[in-house]
């Protein structure tokens, strides 16, 4: 007759899910979506000022970073905005689709490589990208004269996968 230690058996069986839970799988990782527009003015074709993309996985926004190259002296504000443009009402709460995040740069003189960033983690409601939802990055220029180039870079981080 074999005598089995219950505590040994319990330890064997509990170590594995403990390892899976505590160390298994992924930490958050960083990747980005970008919108890159040359000669940005208000009449630039909307297709060149907007970029639509669908989130391949759930993630949260870490920064919306705006970099502008401006060689024309004029008063203007360049703004980058992220909004959700499609939703699946049956599975995604409205609040996820009503989030926006924006970053702006204001000029009074010519400048190059001027930058601004808006960090969503500092806001009360973190901005979340939901897998399968389509989002839109939009660039706008408040002035009548163009900026040579505006680049909006949206950095996102996957949720930590404690599995």
């Amino acid at each position, binding site marked *: 007759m*074999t005598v*089995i*230690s*219950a*505590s040994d*058996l*319990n330890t*064997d*069986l*509990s170590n*594995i*899910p*403990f*390892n*899976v*839970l505590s*160390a*298994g*799988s*992924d*930490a958050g*990782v*960083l*990747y*980005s*979506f*970008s919108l*890159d527009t*040359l000669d940005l003015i208000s009449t630039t*074709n*909307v*297709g*060149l000022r*907007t*970029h*639509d*993309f*669908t989130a*391949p*996985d759930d993630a949260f926004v*870490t*920064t919306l*970073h705006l*970099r502008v*190259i401006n060689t024309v002296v004029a008063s203007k504000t360049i703004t980058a905005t992220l909004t959700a443009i499609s939703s699946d009402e049956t599975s995604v709460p409205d609040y996820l689709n009503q989030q926006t995040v924006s970053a702006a740069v204001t000029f009074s003189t010519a400048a*190059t*490589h*001027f*930058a601004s*960033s808006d960090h969503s983690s500092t806001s009360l409601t973190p901005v979340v990208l939901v897998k399968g939802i*389509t989002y839109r990055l939009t660039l706008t220029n408040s002035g009548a004269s163009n900026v*040579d*180039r505006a*680049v909006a*870079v949206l*950095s996102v981080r*996957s949720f930590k*996968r*404690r*599995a």
Partner: protein
Amino acid sequence: MIPREHLRFTDGSTFEASRLTQNLRLLADDVNDALARRYAYSSFTLDFSTVNNTFDPAEFAYQIPTLFAYDIVGVEIELYAATNVTSVTMTVTGAGVSGAETTTAVGAGVTTRAFAQNSFVAQVASGTATYTLSVAASSTPWTLTACRVNVMIRTDRGNAGAAHPMWTPSNLAFPGKTTNEAAFDAEIVAADASTDANIANTKRLRMEVFTRRSIPGGAMAASDQDLPIPPTTRTVAQVVTGVVCAATSSMRGAVRDSSSELVGATATGTGLSSLALATTTTTAAVSIASSTGASDGLIRLSRGTGTDAISFVYTVAYWSL
């Protein structure tokens, strides 16, 4: 994820093999749930904006060498077409590509968005995947006022480390029989191996693509040069530069940190009707820690030799995060 509640054994009780069987099944569910989350997702964008009927066919195709195997899990086309454009179609081909579907967007006008989404799973295992856009037009001339193709990918962290063995308990015939200690041990060992592989495989593989078209001859404007990249500590695995230009010019695509180039590849043109590729592979660890302007990390395009006009240039940066 919360582990499933396992049945506990107590000393002095009669061993019930069915409880052990049930526990093994719960364990297998936990482990395999974790393995099912072994993917890292990301997306890269291929830009076809401003392309018109006079462009050379070489400018309609991005050749992207396959540094690591990945799955394409979706392609979407965002299109603002001009007069005469009927539709655009994206195809993915290559010796190592299987399961790819074509995606088509029907033009809706210059200022009206046409958007096509196609979710599928294709494998890109090796070689060079070629992403080609074909345009159907009722007549010429035509221009794609704005056209971007988003490619959503996932990579398996098991491809960057040990094999990712799934675990399915196979020796569960304990009820009514003498406990088979060796069989039980084998199950625990298999579960451990599966768990350990999942823990050890931490590399997330991703790609970013930076593209420019129709750069005029002469000195390269600052507005054509840089794409900021997210700040994070990462390892550049490979940089590929593709260019369509005269044979007397070359373009360099490089990853930079706050002060200097880290790794880059220079492609020399082979004429206006063919794409030239150059690849540099590295294991350099790169730390990019800021996103406040001057000290950003960047992917930078710059001229190598020559001052010819550049029809089409792009750089693919492969990351192992």
